[in-house]
């Protein structure tokens, strides 16, 4: 039985398409970098209005998420993600994309279980584990250093 399993695993390994790792990495670098440059521009705009770097980061996130949602709605962001993988997905615009894309697709299932639930297909796990990690890290830092 075991050798069957191994053979099968070997076979699937061979049949699986090889991922073009280097090419993917280069495109992810360029696209991800460019999105961050846009973010820097937006942040620069808010700092020009007299905000400090820290104050400017929240409105920058809001604008970038809005852009991500808009471009996803227009169907452009999915194309960016298709070509650049994590270059489009990791920036916060990609987080917006991961919410809008499934919500749009499953609108036929209704406003509650279609749109409402699918908005959190990816954002749900990110929030659950992000919030948990932040709380654990914050508590540990408080315990260890005495300063939060």
């Amino acid at each position, binding site marked *: 039985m075991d050798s069957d399993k191994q053979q099968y695993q070997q076979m699937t390994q061979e049949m699986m398409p090889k991922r073009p790792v280097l090419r993917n990495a280069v495109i992810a670098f360029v696209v991800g970098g460019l999105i961050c440059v846009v973010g820097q521009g937006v942040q620069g705009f808010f700092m020009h209005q007299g905000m400090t770097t820290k104050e400017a980061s929240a409105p920058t996130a*809001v604008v970038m998420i809005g852009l991500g949602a808009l471009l996803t709605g227009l169907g452009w962001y999915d194309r960016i993600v298709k070509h650049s993988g994590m270059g489009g997905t990791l920036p916060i615009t990609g987080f917006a994309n*991961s919410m809008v894309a499934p919500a749009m697709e499953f609108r036929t299932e209704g406003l509650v279980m279609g749109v409402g639930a699918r908005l959190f297909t990816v954002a749900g796990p990110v929030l659950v584990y992000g919030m948990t990690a932040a709380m654990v890290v914050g508590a540990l830092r408080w315990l260890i250093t005495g300063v939060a």
Partner: protein
Amino acid sequence: MIFVWAFVVGGLMCVLAQLVMDWFRMTPGQVLVVFVVAGAVLGGLGIYGKLVDFAGAGASVPLPGFGYTMVEGIGQAVKQKGALGLFTGGLTAASGGIKAAVIFGLVAALIFKPKS
């Protein structure tokens, strides 16, 4: 100069995410979870804050910046409110982004039709 570092650091973070996805054959959602947790851990160690000072949006726009923001918020809230801050600080700091994501996400999903 901040634009150059934003490009380089933000780009490199996306490369790292892409390599993690390709090597460990993860789904995009799994990679995002790993990176938001990593951002929280690096934030707690004081490393991510330095990266944000250095690379600006190159560090705050990628998703680990979200984990970092929540840890920083918890730190501030604990200083003011003690243990309650562990519960309120993270979401307070991240509230703008989360609310924007829900509202813009809902509106976009209602206005636009999916392109096949």
